[in-house]
């Protein structure tokens, strides 16, 4: 984080983003990004829940047996 220029990590992918619209965001905060701009802080528990759900869906989709029944 340098000024309002940030690098954000989304499940291992790194993106450039701006914190201009979220001046209170600090290093290590979890944020919601829209079109390259952080627009809201995210509750850590909530973010963890979403990531776990995404991981579960991805596991499920990578299991051919389950898809073919």
């Amino acid at each position, binding site marked *: 984080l340098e000024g309002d220029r940030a690098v954000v990590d989304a499940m291992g992918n790194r993106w450039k983003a701006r914190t201009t619209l979220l001046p209170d965001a600090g290093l290590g905060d979890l944020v919601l990004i829209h079109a390259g701009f952080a627009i809201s802080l*995210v509750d850590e528990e909530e973010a963890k829940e979403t990531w776990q759900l995404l991981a579960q869906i991805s596991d499920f989709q990578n299991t051919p047996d389950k898809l073919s029944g």
Partner: protein
Amino acid sequence: VNPDIMIDRIQQAQQLMDAACRELAGEINIMEVCGTHTVAIFRSGIRSIVPANLKLLSGPGCPVCVTDQGYVDTVLHLADRDDCLIATYGDMIRVPGRGGSLETRRKRANIRVILSSADALQLARDNPGKIVVFVAVGFETTAPATAVVVKEAAAESLENFCILSGHKLVVPAMRALLSEKNHNIDAFLCPGHVSVIIGYGAFAEIVEDFGLPCVVAGFEPVQIIEGLAEICGQLAAGRPELKSMYGAVVTERGNIAAQNIIDECFEAADGYWRGLGMIERSTLKLKDKYSRFDAFSRFHITETQAEDNTGCQCGQILCGLIDPPQCPLFEKSCTPEAPIGACMVSSEGACAAWFKYRLPRKH
């Protein structure tokens, strides 16, 4: 997440929804006004588990879909100029207008797909010999990102950058829908990300003036079902309320920094919407002090409403008056591969979602 807890929550919401809908006589229409909700509702299969008398409508919530034909034609007109470099979010590329689309102009090599308004500004810095026109579409969620780069362009005195503002405001569109005599909307599932910016308090006027439930929901299937259940419960009890169920992300007042920067650069202006026509004070126009970055004034363009004579029913669909399969073009001449209307172009459009995810209802 414990999957069992998730399933419990879904079942609980479903029971609530079923009980409420049994109590309510006749058809109940809940409209979402957010493209991300449209897709999430289809992808998760929620439509197949809602009660038979509960109908889910996709309203004017997908930025590309609500963009008027006249605006699309203006973008194409600017793309045909040799001095312009067009910077656009990807979903505008295939929207058909007068004489093709941006995609059919790709050989002109003056169209760039960007992910952020900041990329458009950088394009202007990197191409001093061209005028970069940023195709600025979207609701209150993307408008502040546009405002940030307009301010930066001004601070840098970057004269080869301008924006074609097609930014729109959600609440005036909701009011316009409800002011139509033949509307069939009983409640709104309010948009999640727009609410992050404007705050859920912005929908209070809809509840107060029209007596309709307004519930903000997140995008996980469980959050959407709980939102729908809340709405059904309110309707059954006859007590329309304003409620946010999108956790800590959405507050009553929203993101003040983002609202301030919108106010600094833009003012509300009358403007055209696909399907809804002219809506008073529903679009964002750059303020006079930033007019040199306004592509409309820079190129002396007056926005007019263009006639669409393809037979496309996007307008009716956006108002929730018909479902996509009722359009004579749907799946026949209009498909995601060869779209005729904007709602089939954007992956967030109602037509594209119906095309991709349509499943027979269980009833």
